[in-house]
């Protein structure tokens, strides 16, 4: 089975004075065809900039300083998204790779109707499509994402619709051109739980029917459990653990992943005290030269305060960045 997208050694930095401060440090990931890869992490861990760099939309002054990608494009063959000329990139963006953003309320333009915004996405890639064809396409997409009154919705402005409806429209626009890869950056964080459930169900369903691969970025392990087949856990700008979803939830190996799962599941237990990971999330760029989790880790040894552990395979398909396992393997 081939990979739709391979990211290797991606490094993103921001200038600070004369220096470049890394915000994302040598991340390698593979997105298989037709599957959902989840990226989970806390704020500032670099999960969103990974996604925006793939579309060449990193906010200034961030830049990619290292790394390559290989995307299997049906228009241009195997391409490196990071260095692709902007003309070719425009053909891919919105056509082969689409993105859903976190805040549906702010990512649609308030002064255009839904119809105008949906038409724009079609017109750019299919300039010869007739008005009638575009209208049919938009209506069928709105029906697909369960919008109750599609004709009426097309002529509405974003402020006339609810958050859940707007997110459905965002998904409709993203999927309209049958993309091969859908990047979803916290698609349900701004929504209520009952609406979140509807949107996640919808995304799972559409992923099946469109055979698209999904890159799901979230801070919520519950969302990962509902959608992903494979998970990468980010902490302080690099991957600390990567595994198939069952493996990660049932046999977490990295102390950070273990801690996260423990603190969430202790919420539903009957104990009087929650399990809490001590300390704070290190802000972007100010990372220790040794294991970046050592300061908060209850298992940290002397070795952890000297070197950065490498990402090593602890079980088939299960990678973990921790000295604890290295020793076990060596012994």
């Amino acid at each position: 089975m081939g990979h739709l997208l391979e990211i290797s050694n991606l490094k993103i930095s921001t200038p600070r004075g004369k220096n470049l401060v890394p915000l994302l440090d040598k991340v390698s990931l593979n997105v298989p065809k037709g599957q959902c890869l989840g990226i989970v992490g806390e704020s500032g861990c670099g999960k969103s900039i990974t996604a925006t760099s793939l579309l060449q939309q990193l906010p200034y002054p961030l830049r990619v300083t290292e790394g390559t990608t290989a995307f299997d494009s049906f228009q241009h063959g195997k391409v490196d998204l990071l260095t692709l000329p902007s003309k070719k990139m425009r053909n891919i963006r919105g056509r082969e790779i689409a993105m859903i953003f976190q805040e549906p309320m702010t990512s649609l333009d308030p002064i255009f109707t839904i119809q105008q915004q949906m038409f724009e996405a079609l017109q750019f890639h299919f300039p010869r499509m007739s008005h009638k064809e575009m209208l049919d396409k938009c209506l069928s997409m709105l029906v697909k994402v369960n919008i109750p009154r599609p004709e009426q919705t097309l002529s509405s402005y974003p402020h006339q619709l609810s958050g859940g409806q707007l997110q459905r429209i965002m998904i409709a626009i993203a999927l309209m051109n049958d993309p091969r890869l859908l990047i979803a950056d916290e698609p349900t964080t701004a929504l209520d739980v009952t609406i979140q459930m509807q949107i996640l169900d919808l995304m799972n369903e559409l992923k099946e029917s469109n055979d698209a691969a999904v890159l799901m970025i979230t801070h919520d392990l519950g969302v990962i459990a509902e959608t992903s087949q494979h998970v990468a856990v980010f902490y302080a700008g690099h991957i600390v653990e990567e595994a198939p979803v069952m493996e990660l939830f049932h046999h977490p190996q990295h102390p950070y992943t273990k801690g996260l799962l423990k603190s969430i599941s202790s919420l539903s237990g009957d104990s009087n005290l929650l399990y809490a990971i001590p300390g704070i999330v290190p802000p972007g760029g100010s990372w220790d030269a040794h294991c970046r989790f050592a300061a908060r880790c209850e298992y940290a040894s002397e070795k952890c305060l000297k070197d950065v552990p490498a990402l090593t395979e602890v079980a088939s398909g299960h990678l973990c960045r921790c000295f604890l396992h290295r020793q076990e393997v060596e012994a």
Partner: protein
Amino acid sequence: MNEYLLDVRNLKTYFPVKGGLLRRIIGHVHAVEDVSFRLKEKQVFALVGESGCGKSTTGKSILRLIDPTAGQVIFDGQDITQLSQEEVRKKRRDMQFIFQNPYASLNPRMNVWQLLSEPLKAHFSLSESELRDRVESMLDKIGFTKDQLQRYPHQFSGGQKQRISIARALITQPRFVVADEPVSALDVSIQAQILNLLVQLQQEMSLSMVFISHDLNVVRFISSQVAVMYLGSIMEMGATKQIYAHPRHPYSKALLGAVPSLDPAKKKKRKALGGEVPNPANPPTGCPFHPRCDRASELCRQQKPLLTQQGDRALACYHPLDN
């Protein structure tokens, strides 16, 4: 001495909707519609619901941060809604509010010392040394050291800022506090620290608390009593354990079922609740939940069910689920 510290009776808060050329009032948004509940000393009572259900407005109305339209809020035998502004201000020594977003609720131009001593200066006349003692003992409780007193909010992380705003609310030693989504702006690994701190302080200081949240897991952990709100009204109210184990209102059941499970193997064969929360300016007739409810009957469409005691809990439903 009353059995209940706080007794909220038929609280209603309406916001006017203005429209037309003359900006006349053309209607009202019924943000809080006839909410009643009681809170014992040292108890944690949670209000849970989706956005727009009126849970924050209820919390603010209790403390008169928003003036309620009708109803009574009896705190320690005194009706808060009848007090003058000046009397309410004095009362706030005993009733405080913890805000959701610590990035916005702390004045960026005040350092920790100023932030923490301000409430004391407003409510007590203390000497400089007494002031220092109180601030330092509070600082100790939230896990800060004295050398952090001169720092400003931007020098702290989100979790630390929330500790400061908790300290600011509790430094006057109130008997009652409303905490409005105190952890929802924080990272997952930090939430647990702040919740532990809140529980610990609540027990140490014998606080009563109304805890407002949309996060059902957090509510289960922190509260002993819970009220599930929908569109301004309480749908189901009772002991947290019982309601979580056996929700009887169809909405509570749907809400609890919508929480993503942490076990990918248990990806439940559940049906997502259809539809959306209606606009509170134009609520449906009868039961506010009937357009999304699969048990709705003609009666539900016509007449709003009242909150009545049914066994171990209060329910507002004509067709509750079996216990």
